[in-house]
């Protein structure tokens, strides 16, 4: 029998305790004397608004940051975790909010990385693959060990992340917003697996902004607000509004409940796609003759499992991807061959991959906010930037969109994930676009900000904006959209008025079971 997994020297974690953890960054106290206690066989949820300090606390636990004060105890013993290597050796695993995979390597290579090989210096990828297969079967994590990471869907990449931790014998697994990026079906699979791990006695820390998930999954929940621990509570008996109140410190009113849909066909056609076809990044056909119309003052929801052409469609409209057939008209004007013109003609785009598209992470918050219109008045004075005008406008946007940042000149990359998203929202919405393409606009965004973003979309619609809302969150689509298009395998499977759309019907269409093109 081989010693598999090769480095499983860790013993069971029966208790983990963080005591008085404090972490300061320039201008912010990310964690302020936080106490947290988690035990084996429990799913412990960590809740908090964007920037509350959840990821920072977990990065300290994983050895990526060193705390300014406080201590970590495992099984009652104080431990120092000065690097991820220490964390792994102590049986801690972490699925990061932004995946930590090497795209140019295979699944097996990513998993073997950093481990000793059973053949000394020579790689033993065949053995790694065999063990990965075994673990994958045990936990229902289907993935091909020989595939390259760049070939995988986001859901598959997450499975690789989990396998990486399992392979290293993680006894305590931190999952930082694992459900933000995967499909509803994959969420169910993930939860089943987490419950299985809990039954094995492992400790799990689960971060999510979706309160429904926290209630469904966790045994206890700890709430962070502005870097401080509000408290740890048994999940049973807490309602969504209880949790929301704890997080925000006041009542949160969701925008979705009281949304009024305007009568259909209200405005003129703002955006019209006729038989659009386009290729994916890998040069395979991604869109097959998509026909859509979005009217002024209307939200058209685009539902679908990710990877069915949503991203390609959004990029075609935004002028970032060439079409291979079809026409695009904006307010009746044919702009098919003129991508640059599309952006200038008033199309705004909120991309779903905010870390890659739509932002320059090295630039400051202010520079990112004016990226689109820094050459126009009042930001430009001839060839120069009018610093005071930029500052004023940015402070105003930071306030209006409740962006949590020490100031406008902080580099964007040091903001929390949800706040980076808000910066893009602020920039794109403040341009008063005639057409807005919003892809997963509330992914990874806390409930307060989600409500605020929904409110902003509704207001834009009221002012006559045409909105294409691409989302995997059916609740979001059903709450906001006037009409709902379902995309499957690069085709529009159906377009339904919101009155006829039910989650079941949409679910079937998304799965490609039924097709009812109208």
């Amino acid at each position, binding site marked *: 029998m081989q010693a598999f997994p090769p480095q499983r020297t860790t013993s069971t974690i029966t208790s983990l305790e963080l005591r008085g953890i404090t972490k300061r960054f320039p201008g912010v106290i990310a964690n302020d004397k936080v106490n947290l206690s988690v035990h084996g066989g429990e799913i412990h949820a960590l809740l908090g608004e964007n920037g509350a300090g959840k990821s920072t606390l977990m990065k300290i636990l994983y050895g990526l940051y060193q705390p300014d004060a406080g201590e970590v105890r495992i099984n009652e013993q104080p431990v120092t975790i000065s690097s991820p290597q220490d964390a792994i050796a102590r049986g801690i695993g972490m699925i990061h909010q932004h995946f930590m995979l*090497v795209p140019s390597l295979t699944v097996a290579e990513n998993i073997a990385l950093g481990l000793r090989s059973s053949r000394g210096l020579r790689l033993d990828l065949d053995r790694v693959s065999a063990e990965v297969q075994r673990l994958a079967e045990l936990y229902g994590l289907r993935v091909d060990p020989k595939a390259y990471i760049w070939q995988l869907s986001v859901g598959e990449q997450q499975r690789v992340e989990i396998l990486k931790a399992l392979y290293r014998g993680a006894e305590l697994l931190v999952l930082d917003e694992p459900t933000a990026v995967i499909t509803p079906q994959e969420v169910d699979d993930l939860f089943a697996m987490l419950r299985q791990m809990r039954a094995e006695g492992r400790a799990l820390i689960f971060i999510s902004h979706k309160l429904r998930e926290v209630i469904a999954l966790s045994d206890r929940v700890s709430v962070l607000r502005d870097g401080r621990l509000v408290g740890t509570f048994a999940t049973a008996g807490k309602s969504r509004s209880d949790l929301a109140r704890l997080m925000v410190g006041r009542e949160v009113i969701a925008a979705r409940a009281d949304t009024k849909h305007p009568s259909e066909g209200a405005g003129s056609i703002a955006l019209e796609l006729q038989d659009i076809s386009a290729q994916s990044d890998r040069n395979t056909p991604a869109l097959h003759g998509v026909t859509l119309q979005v009217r002024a003052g209307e939200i058209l929801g685009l539902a679908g499992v990710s990877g069915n052409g949503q991203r390609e469609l959004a990029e075609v409209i935004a002028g970032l991807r060439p079409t291979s057939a079809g026409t695009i008209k904006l307010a009746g004007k044919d702009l098919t061959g003129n991508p640059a013109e599309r952006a200038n003609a008033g199309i705004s785009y909120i991309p779903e991959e905010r870390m890659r598209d739509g932002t320059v992470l090295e630039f400051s918050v202010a520079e990112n906010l004016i990226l689109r219109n820094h050459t126009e008045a009042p930001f430009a004075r001839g060839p120069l930037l009018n610093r005071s005008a930029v500052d004023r406008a940015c402070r105003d946007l930071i306030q209006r969109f409740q962006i949590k940042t020490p100031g406008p000149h902080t580099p964007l990359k040091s903001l929390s994930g949800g706040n980076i998203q808000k910066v893009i929202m602020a920039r794109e919405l403040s341009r008063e676009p005639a057409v807005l393409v919003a892809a997963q606009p509330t992914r990874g965004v806390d409930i307060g900000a989600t409500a605020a973003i929904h409110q902003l979309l509704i207001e834009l619609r009221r002012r006559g904006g045409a909105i294409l809302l691409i989302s995997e969150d059916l609740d979001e689509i059903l709450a906001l959209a006037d009409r709902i298009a379902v995309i499957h395998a690069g085709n529009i499977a159906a377009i339904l008025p919101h009155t006829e759309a039910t989650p079941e019907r949409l679910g079937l269409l998304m799965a490609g079971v039924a097709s009812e093109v109208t």
Partner: protein
Amino acid sequence: MEQLFTLTTLTGILHSTIRLATPYLFASLGETISQRSGVLNLGVEGQMLMGAFAAFFVVVTTGSLLGGVVAAIFVGALLGLLMALVSVSFRAEQGISGIGMYLLGLGLSSLLFRLTLGSVQSVRGFAELALPGLSSIPVLGPALFKHSLLVYVAFALVPMVAYLLNRTTWGLNIRAVGDNPQAADTLGVPVIAIRYATVTVGGAMAAMGGASLSISAVNIFQENMTGGIGFIAVALVYFGGWRPVGVMLGILLFSLVSALQIWLQLVGIGIPSDLAVMLPYILTIIALALAPRRTGQPAALTRPFNRGMA
């Protein structure tokens, strides 16, 4: 008669192609290792010059070829370490620190040469080593298998480096660190240590490239004797798509054109010699321009590492 002339010429051209390729192989393969870990070492030229001088000096003073090789490796590793300190630890702009390394190597090797040896002299370097059997293959045998030891070593390095990068745990670490150091770090891969190691090895190999000139190919030392080989070696890493075999093919092509160019001058075909000398370089520029595939480029090339910052 005509036939015979062509074949000997062919043998001659191929022979000098192999010989010319040798310093490039050492330098480019070392640079490949360092770039695959994400560090651009633009100072190869300076390291080659120092290696050439160190080896030459030891051979002149002691007569030991092995001593010369050891000296080159030692000096090159030391300069690699310095490069790593500046680029990896101090996170200097890698293009700039590389130019600094070049100037340091150029200046220091010239200075030391003037202070110690002073005048041009030659040494008895590595002798030609005809491989029994293989070297008697007609036409190709004498072209490929009648070379000095360092030439064989340089070519043997190609599969060795390929094996290192693709089949070993070290290679996996190197590739991961060059592509996504943050991810590698979260798995406990020592990013900084690996970059130090690759840049140091790269420096040692560059110095060996220099030594292959001064104690093997030409057996003399002259100020600035590399004349740009180190910079072309860096370009050839891009041309070869960061893969050892690709890099070797690029080097062979470049060396073949260089060999042809020399032959053209010898037979005196009516091309101005200045133009002929430029030929390989023009070819390199054209080839680089026509090879737009950036696939294989380490994603984190030239990007310093900072723990925790995504």
